[in-house]
């Protein structure tokens, strides 16, 4: 199953479970969304539960906040993560702080925001951004990013049933290309828990979403060419993130590389590095290194050069080992 189908299947299962659950967003209705994630769901669940909204992201999230406050599960789709920013106030000042500021009288835990993110589709500045770090500074939000169809389905179902608002970023370049065996039935994967996808002893590499296959490729090169044994961690949840799994690994390997697509400065890699150097200070054999996007807007014609690909990661592995 590819990621599109896995996500569609997860939504279908959730919709059939919750009698009033709604899906809303630009073009998600009859058409099924520009990436077709909500395909056929309007037909199956009706126009009152799966519907196109007017073209206003601040309205979508504002409306979804209110709807979620009634307790009805809501999926709000933002067509591209680049277009979530008009809703930044609703997300950061409202969604994230709802339960806290009301003293628990109200909450919008029933809300899940889905959005395709990341590069790899020749999208240029505004169809390529990886904005997770913008939200990671916001207590009250959960942030989840799946790496493949199996993860996508299990994590999305968890996000929907989690009693907190969740931002669910989908690596759009994997929508069709990433395939895995996916159960047809309902299953869920834990939020806030990283996934060790390969154990190793020399160095730890952390990534999430579409970058997981990048670090896998780099690890393979390093193993084959240099016999370096790498522990690979898919963080899966950016907020809250699984400090324990990462620090346990680094205490063992003594080395850490973080890979993310977003620009390096104040990306989420900075938080990981800051925390790990504190927790693992005496175990570190080399400084923590980051392989990330450059500090520039995402450039259309230099996408390949911009991206933190497997070669850059491989070179960084060698640099870390040499340190």
């Amino acid at each position, binding site marked *: 199953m590819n990621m599109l189908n896995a996500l569609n299947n997860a939504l279908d299962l959730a919709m059939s479970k919750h009698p009033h659950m709604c899906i809303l967003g630009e073009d998600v209705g009859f058409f099924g969304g520009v990436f077709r994630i909500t395909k056929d769901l309007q037909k199956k669940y009706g126009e009152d539960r799966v519907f196109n909204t007017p073209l206003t992201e*601040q309205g979508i999230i504002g409306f979804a906040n209110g709807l979620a406050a009634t307790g009805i599960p809501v999926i709000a789709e933002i067509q591209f993560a680049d277009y979530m920013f008009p809703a930044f106030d609703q997300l950061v000042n409202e969604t994230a702080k709802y339960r806290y500021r009301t003293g628990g009288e109200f909450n919008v835990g029933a809300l899940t925001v889905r959005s395709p993110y990341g590069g790899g589709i020749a999208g240029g500045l505004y169809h390529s951004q990886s904005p997770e770090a913008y939200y990671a500074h916001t207590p009250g939000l959960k942030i989840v990013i799946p790496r493949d169809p199996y993860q996508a389905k299990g994590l999305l179902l968890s996000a929907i049933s989690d009693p907190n608002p969740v931002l669910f970023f989908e690596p759009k370049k994997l929508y069709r290309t990433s395939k895995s065996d996916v159960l047809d039935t309902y299953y869920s994967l834990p939020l806030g828990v990283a996934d060790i996808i390969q154990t190793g002893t020399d160095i730890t590499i952390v990534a999430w979403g579409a970058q997981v296959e990048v670090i896998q490729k780099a690890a393979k090169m390093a193993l084959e060419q240099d016999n370096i044994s790498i522990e690979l961690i898919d963080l899966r949840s950016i907020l809250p993130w699984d400090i324990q799994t990462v620090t346990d690994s680094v205490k063992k390997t003594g080395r850490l590389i973080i890979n993310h697509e977003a620009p390096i400065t104040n990306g989420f890699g900075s938080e990981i590095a800051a925390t790990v150097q504190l927790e693992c200070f005496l175990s570190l054999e080399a400084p923590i290194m980051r392989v990330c996007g450059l500090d520039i807007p995402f450039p259309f014609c230099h996408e390949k050069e911009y991206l933190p690909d497997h070669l850059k990661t491989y070179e960084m592995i060698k640099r870390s080992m040499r340190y």
Partner: protein
Amino acid sequence: MKNTINHTTHIITHTLKPITTDALSIETLSLLKTNGSLYPEAVCPTIDQKTAVKIYHTMQFIRLLDDRMQACQRQGRISFYMQCLGEEAAVTGSAAGLHQQDMIFAQYREQAALHYRGFTLQQFMNQLFSNQLDLGKGRQMPVHYGSADLNYMTISSPLATQIPQASGYAYGQRLRKDPYCTLCYFGEGAASEGDFHAGLNMAAVHQAPVIFFCRNNGYAISTPTYEQFIGDGIASRGIGYGIDTLRVDGNDVLAVYAATQYARNHAMTQHKPFLIEAINYRSAAHSTSDDPIGYRTKEEEKKFSTNNAFYRYETFLIQKNWIDLKEEIERTEQIKQDILTDVKRAEKIEKPIIDQMIEDVYDKPTTQLFNQLDDLKKHIQHYPELYSHVH
């Protein structure tokens, strides 16, 4: 593909003539004369004595509460306050036009609606003094009330964010076939925010049973309406969203009551939003942090504040023989007394325990939050006198 677009329904003209502001004439509904009697053509909304007096008592209470708490702020006992003065009638009249189970999303100056619903003096005080009994756990500035029991969404400072939320909430009510609707208050200033546009348009398109209630009180802090918009008030925007709209004299509690009942009926039977613009004047300062002397004249304040909604309505009730002024004077004294007593009660109650700092960020605190709280508590133990007590 249920439909095709309706591009061909427009009427064609061959003469260039723009639509200008005078194409729409929006009148202001008023039923009660300033002398407390009804205009001859006015139809009095059906209202029983109990409701009528409850409205009156709500306005009475809020005027006293505002006056006392303003003073308390001046004495440094609370840090902040906002008065409703000049808008008691609009807020109380609209709250009375609703069902108790209808949801209210307010901006911040609508304490009268909350009191009408049953928020007690003690509850107001607990919030204002941010004590342990505050439903909001002391986390927000004074006047940020809210109550799930009373279907009154907790106030949020960022303006206009409640507008699309109210649309979404009302949509949920319709979806669940609840026999209730939502009313959303906001100022004419907040109506400039993008969230206003999104909220009204989405409610119209998605047929959410929500009443948008704009308190046009002439000012957004120091900014007068003529620097806020140049159209004909907020009412003139309704038509652009396909939302039926009424403008009312916000100092006429009966007109507001009638308009809200009408709007509620419209929302519930037609599954459509409705827009009400109440014309008022913010007689007091914006808040205790503000001093209007810096931006408006005493003459203007006098001109607009004389048209006093409370006494207009009081005269109406006296003429109906529904209240006895002597009793009301005693009642007023009693309320003043109660407020003073309750200030003393509320300010003695301790503030929320420190463990609550990390509650409600999520449904359960994360490991990291527990660690942060532990560190904080250990730190405070080194300097116990310098922070609030750790329980």
